C-alpha cells in the first residue's frame, strides 16, 4: 500500500498543451502515482499553487501575460520549499542566470525523456 505522504504533486506550467501533455506522459512513466496538475499561464500557476500546494513545479518562460520567470519568483518568494524547474526553449544565458538566482534549475527544451529526466533528478535530489 502506498503511503499517502509519499505521493508527490507536480504543477506543470506551459501555454503549450503539447508541451504539458509530453511532460505529463514522461513523468507518469517514471512516477505513476504522482498527482499532476496543469496551468496554462503564469497567473494560473500562481492560483494553482495557493489551491493545490504542489511539491514540484515546471515553468515555461515565454507565455502570454506574466512570464514564467516572474511567476517563479513570486511562487518561490512565498513558498521557498517548492522545487522549481524553468523549462524553456529560450536558452539565453540570462535566463539560466535568473533561474540560478531564484534557486531554480534551468532545463532546455525540447521536451524529451532526457530533458524531463533532468527535471526529475532535480526534484528528487538533495535540498
Amino acid at each position, binding site marked *: 500500500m502506498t503511503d499517502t505522504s509519499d505521493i508527490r504533486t507536480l504543477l506543470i506550467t506551459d*501555454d503549450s498543451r503539447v508541451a504539458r501533455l*509530453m511532460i505529463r506522459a514522461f513523468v507518469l512513466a517514471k512516477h505513476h502515482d504522482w498527482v499532476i496538475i496543469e496551468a496554462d499561464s503564469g497567473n494560473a500557476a500562481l492560483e494553482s499553487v495557493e489551491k493545490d500546494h504542489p511539491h514540484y513545479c515546471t515553468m515555461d518562460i515565454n507565455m*502570454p501575460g506574466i512570464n514564467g520567470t516572474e511567476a517563479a519568483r513570486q511562487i518561490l518568494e512565498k513558498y521557498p520549499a517548492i522545487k522549481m524547474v524553468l523549462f524553456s526553449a*529560450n536558452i*539565453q544565458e540570462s535566463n539560466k542566470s535568473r533561474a540560478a538566482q531564484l534557486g531554480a534549475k534551468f532545463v532546455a527544451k525540447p*521536451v524529451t525523456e532526457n*530533458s524531463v529526466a533532468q527535471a526529475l533528478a532535480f526534484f528528487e535530489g538533495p535540498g
Partner: protein
Amino acid sequence: MPLSALSDLQKDALTELFNIGVSRAAACLSEIVADEILLSAPKIELFHPSAVSVDEFMVFDGPIGSVTQRFTGGIETEVLLLFPEKQALEIIHDMLGNTVSLSEFTEFEQEAMCEIGNVILNACVATMADLLGVDFESSMPIYAIENFTTILHRAIHNPGQPLLLLLHINMIIERHQSQGYLMFLMTIPSLNALRAHLDRFLENIR
C-alpha cells in the same frame, strides 16, 4: 542599398554566428525527431524588396507549414521556419510518438508545430544573442499553412521592410529526407543595431 551595407568582416562574423545558432537549432530538431540533421552552408543576402525575385527563392512547391516568431530587444528580427506540410506532419508524429492517439493527432497539429518552431527558433536566436552579448524577448509563435510565394510577398510588401536581410539555410532530416528552411528578415533600423553589435563582437575577439 548595396550589399556593402555590411562590411566583408561583418558579413563573415554574421555568417559564423548564424552557423553556430543554426547548429544549436539543428541539435534541438535532432532531439525531437531522433535522427541526424544535415545542414547546408548558411547564406546571407541583402536585398531591396523590389529586386527580390520570388522564383529565385522558390524553395518549396505546394503547401508549407510556417512558424513565424518576432524577436525584439538587442536583436530585432522576424524569423520563419518552413517545412512542406506533409513533412511537418511527419515531424509532429516523431515528436508525439504514442503520446496521443491517431484520432487526436490532427487536433494537436497546430500546437505541436508552434512548440517545435518555438524550440528551434529560440535555440538559434538565443545562441546568436549570447555570442553578441545582447538580450531579447520573443513573441508567441504563429503557425500557418501557406505557399512560399504568399510568405515572400508578405515580407516584401511590408511597408516597414525597406530592406531585407535574408539569412537562410536548409536543414535536412536524414531518415525522411525532409527539408526545412530557416529564414531571418531584418529591417534597416534593426540592421544598424546589428552592425554595432557585430563590431563590438569583432573587437572583443581581436
